């Protein structure tokens, strides 16, 4: 049997469409437990490739024949080896092109909706890591929010729809992924905006993004309104785009809320976080569509693969928004926090411009899930 190659875009479609897939993950057990390809109807078997060097006979009866089988490893080499062995044993299998490395870097653009006076807003779903970034387009101009380091994908996408990138924003100084914002701004000749309170240690020039600041895109005046909402970081800023969309950064997610500890100040910022979620957001229209900077679990995806929900619905459903007692809230966001993202300190320093790791190192720093939320 011949083996076939499956790329991250094809696997993403299977996630979005809730298709069945059997994943034979041949990475180390702890790597698999830490982070894997998530899909509602995916089944898994984890056997490190080095335990299969003498043959796959021992696992043949564990691999189904009635559904597609995908062999996955870190980069792809080992998955090809194992896929070939399975193929020699008469099984039809695929391997994941580029492995988990490619999976971590795959971005799937999903259109969220049209803007009132023409233009669109797109969400870039980084399916493997749960990062969400955005492109707002109007009349040939584009703004990007919370870009990942795969900068060429945004540049190519903007070009494909004939838009010039004029503004690039980061809602806060990210700790889970390396921002591509500054690089995109340089390449496109755009303005790079950062909240000044998160930027006290940065080594580069930026435009300060402050509360109440309005930035317009396109001649038809798509308005991006900055709203200071500290808590995840001291500078965290949300955006209201076109009066319709609330880009909540790492403050509010669909099924969870931001964690206040990644810059080391959980106790100090918990009050800010509560104020942002229980007062500042509460004063906004319930009809705003919340577009966060992350999803944590695959259940947060909508039918079309996008991640969004009305603010009013979140006030009804999101546990993190329904804690009356302030002490209980404080406890929830400062105790029993999930493990911190891999290399988050180094990622912060990279985003400040203090260190400049090469591509390979950046990739390594970002391996794993994002873990920016508490539930």
């Amino acid at each position, binding site marked *: 049997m011949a083996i076939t190659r499956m790329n991250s875009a094809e696997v993403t479609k299977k996630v979005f469409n809730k298709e069945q897939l059997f994943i034979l993950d041949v990475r*180390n*057990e702890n*790597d698999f437990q830490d982070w894997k390809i998530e899909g509602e109807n995916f089944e898994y078997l984890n056997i*490190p*490739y*080095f*335990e299969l*060097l003498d043959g796959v006979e021992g696992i043949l009866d564990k691999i189904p024949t009635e559904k597609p089988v995908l062999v996955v*490893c*870190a*980069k792809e*080499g*080992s998955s090809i*080896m194992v896929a070939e062995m399975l193929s020699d044993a008469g099984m039809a299998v695929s391997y994941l092109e580029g492995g988990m490395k490619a999976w971590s870097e795959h971005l799937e653009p999903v259109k969220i909706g049209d803007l009132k006076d023409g233009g669109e807003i797109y969400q870039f779903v980084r399916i493997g890591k749960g990062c969400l970034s955005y492109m707002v387009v109007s009349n040939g101009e584009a703004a990007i929010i919370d870009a990942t380091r795969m900068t060429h994908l945004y540049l190519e996408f903007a070009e494909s729809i004939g838009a010039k990138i004029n503004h690039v924003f980061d809602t806060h100084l990210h700790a889970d992924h390396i921002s591509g914002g500054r690089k995109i701004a340089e390449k496109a000749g755009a303005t790079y905006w950062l909240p000044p309170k998160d930027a006290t240690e940065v080594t580069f020039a930026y435009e300060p993004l402050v509360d109440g600041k309005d930035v317009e895109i396109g001649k038809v005046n798509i308005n991006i309104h900055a709203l200071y909402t500290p808590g995840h970081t001291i500078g965290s800023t949300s955006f209201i785009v076109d009066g319709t969309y609330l880009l909540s950064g790492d403050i509010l997610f669909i099924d969870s809320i931001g964690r206040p500890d990644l810059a080391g100040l959980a106790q100090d910022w918990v009050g800010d976080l509560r104020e942002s979620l229980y007062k500042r957001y509460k004063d906004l229209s319930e009809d705003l569509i919340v577009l966060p900077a992350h999803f944590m679990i695959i259940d947060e995806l909508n039918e079309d693969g996008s991640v969004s929900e009305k603010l009013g619905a979140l006030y009804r459903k999101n546990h993190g928004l329904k804690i009356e007692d302030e002490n209980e809230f404080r406890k929830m966001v400062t105790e029993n926090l999930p493990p911190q993202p891999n290399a988050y300190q180094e990622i912060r320093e990279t985003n400040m411009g203090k260190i400049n790791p090469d591509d*390979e190192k950046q990739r*390594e720093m970002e391996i794993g899930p994002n873990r920016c939320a508490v539930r």
Partner: protein
Amino acid sequence: MENLKANVILDAKGLACPMPIVKTKKAMKELEAGQVLEVQATDKGSKADLKAWAESTGHQYIGTLEEGDTLKHYLRKSSSDETIEKKHPHVINNDELVAKLDSDENLVVLDVRETAEYAFNHIPHAISIPLEELEQRLGELEQDQEIYVVCRTGSRSDLAAQKLTEKGFTKVLNVVPGMSQWSGETTSFVK
């Protein structure tokens, strides 16, 4: 690390996963039990993989040294160490030795493991003489001194203690079980 000896050096530089492990597995077959293999690789993932592979196959992962872009992994082929009956009559357990070292750090501790094992983790001030070099290097030790012989599990040190006794050393104690369970202070030549 000029004093970090390996019996065989395997060059897996420039090779991507799974090749470093495939080659290591093959090279390991050629080695004799207890011998040390140095695997040179540039694939960053090789460290975690070799460690996990060694654990699953029973070989001993000693450690990894980073030299620029090259990772030097040290592995020791599994031996039937643990099953051999220990014969040297005078033994001291780890805890007793820790207590003795607390009061007298100038005790003579003789570490008879391979240099690579010693380099990554040893008792401070311990003298390193691998078992197979012991006979030629007896001159480095004094016959009437108290000598605490240590290895990983107490087997090689047992052989060393017998050898020393045979050569006229009178106060030789075998440390059991040895470094595999050592909870006292240690030091290392590598970061």
